[in-house]
């Protein structure tokens, strides 16, 4: 199928009940019923959408396989929408035969079955201050891009997207839409107007969108978890850096926007930074002064 010219995107900003996987799926179902009245092509949910984020050792009780999670998500959509076709992306804790990951799945759902298009395993596991991910989880090793009916996309989970290089590499590999499920505990009350961490996310991803001429869909978890408030504030930013739609910080909600995918090419024609980067990338990455192992990734493991 030729790539579509438009993408009707929606974000379900979840406020999960800690550890209540089935109950949270029911909450997602209610949102899906609302969406199905005017169905989007793509529905994005946050990181850890069905469990909450801070789980500590309970992650071993709540992690599921990618097949199980994609199946549950797809069945929920199918039931809520009366079997309409849609793509869904959401974060979950993955159990892969006893190795545990913070993952996100992109699944294509049709009336009778579903197909996992991509599973991204979080590469940057924050383990400092309030964060403890690498105490319980293993690190993903691959930044993949994947084909959809709406062009090539990439998934980055939360801190993955804080590093400018990940969005850069995804864009160089052809991603035109970047999906970022996130769970960001809010902090920073000294700045005016909103928490500093909310501003930081929007600034970071607006710059990525502008630099590479991509759409960015950021889905933030919301709700307090043991005093730590997830900042929600989901948004969609276009390839020129305009925030098309934006959610509040503290409430569950749905936001949606229709994305004109031709805008990507127009923005890149105006500001061809991505093409410039692709040309210069070998010189940058093959620089012998960079602290990179020579001889491939296996060399780094030795």
């Amino acid at each position, binding site marked *: 199928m030729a790539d579509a010219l438009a993408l009707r995107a929606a974000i379900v900003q979840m406020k999960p*009940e*800690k*550890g209540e996987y089935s109950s949270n799926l029911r909450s997602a179902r209610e949102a899906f019923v609302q969406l199905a009245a005017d169905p989007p092509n793509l529905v994005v949910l946050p990181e850890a959408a069905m469990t*909450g984020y*801070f*789980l*500590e*050792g*309970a992650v071993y009780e709540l992690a599921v396989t990618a097949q199980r999670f994609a199946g549950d998500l797809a069945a929920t959509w199918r039931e809520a929408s009366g079997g309409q076709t849609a793509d869904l992306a959401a974060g979950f804790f993955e159990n892969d035969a006893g190795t545990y990951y913070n993952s996100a799945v992109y699944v294509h759902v049709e009336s009778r079955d579903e197909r996992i298009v991509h599973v991204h395993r979080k590469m940057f596991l924050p383990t400092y201050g309030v964060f403890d991910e690498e105490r319980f989880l293993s690190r993903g090793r691959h930044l993949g891009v994947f084909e959809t009916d709406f062009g090539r996309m990439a998934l980055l989970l939360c801190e993955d997207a804080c590093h400018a290089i990940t969005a850069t590499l995804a864009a160089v590999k052809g991603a035109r839409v970047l999906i970022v499920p996130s769970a960001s505990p*809010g902090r920073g*009350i*000294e*700045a*005016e*107007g*909103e*928490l500093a961490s909310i501003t930081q996310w929007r600034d970071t991803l607006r710059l990525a969108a502008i630099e590479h001429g991509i759409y960015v869909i950021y889905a933030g978890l919301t*709700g*307090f*978890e*043991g*005093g730590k*408030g997830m900042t929600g504030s989901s948004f969609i930013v276009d390839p020129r850096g305009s925030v098309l739609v934006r959610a509040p*910080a*503290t409430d569950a909600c749905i936001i949606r926007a229709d994305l004109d995918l031709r805008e990507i090419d127009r923005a890149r024609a105006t500001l061809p930074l991505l093409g410039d980067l692709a040309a210069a990338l070998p010189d940058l990455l093959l620089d012998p002064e960079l602290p990179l192992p020579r001889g491939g990734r296996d060399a780094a493991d030795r």
Partner: protein
Amino acid sequence: MLPIVEPSATLLEPPGLDPQVTTTWLVAFLRDELILRRKILRAVIGLSGGVDSAVTAFLCARALGPENVFAIRMPYRASNPSSLTDAALVVNATGIRCVTIDISAAVDGYLQCEPEADARRRGNVMARTRMLVLFDQSAKFDGLPIGTGNKTERLLGYFTWHADDAPPVNPIGDLFKSQIWTLARYLGVPEPLIEKAPSADLEAGQTDEADLGISYARADAILACFLQGYSDVATIERGFNREEVELVRRRVESTHWKRHLPTTAMLSNTAINEFYLRPVDY
């Protein structure tokens, strides 16, 4: 001549805050922690007549509705009478409910067995008696005790362990005292509570800043430096004097234990909170 532009000089001021953003966040916190997570609709607050419990009461009134906030005034016979009248200003301003329970008989009932107890011990007995009352009143009113300890006193260890810090939910524990004052003005806390010298009111004429040996404004600014990783030398280089920096450092470093649960001997690889790790809201 070209104009020269430089950053503004480093100020020795305590951290600020956006009171509107902070209020929105803390109201959401209280609603999520009480109503959503615990299915508890009511808050119970020990209302001392000071600015910390006043701010907490204003936040709870916004989050839960004033009819669902129960203030408990708990005077001891030697308490300053103005503490009661200042607490009444908060009750009138917010419309919250209020009861007064005199703790003198309970405190004296124990202390008559310990006539030699010094002021520190007597103060701790009063604080722990107030906590006993607060938890029991919470059971009576089907509410949750709400903590009123601020970040400055928590860092300086200026509180009674398992008393002031005992309530399961505290909205203001990550706010310095200086930030509490800013928030108090925004929320409409009556001016006398903001203007008066903070006091634990455990002894006549007592003030926090005399007890601590430093003003809250200076202590907060120094604490903010420490928490951002500045050494004592680097903090002094910013303009603070050695004595006050060392005083604050000493208080923080001698009270880490007060900010933790009791130390438990570990004997297995399933020790609670060492190996067996589950979040508080699981």
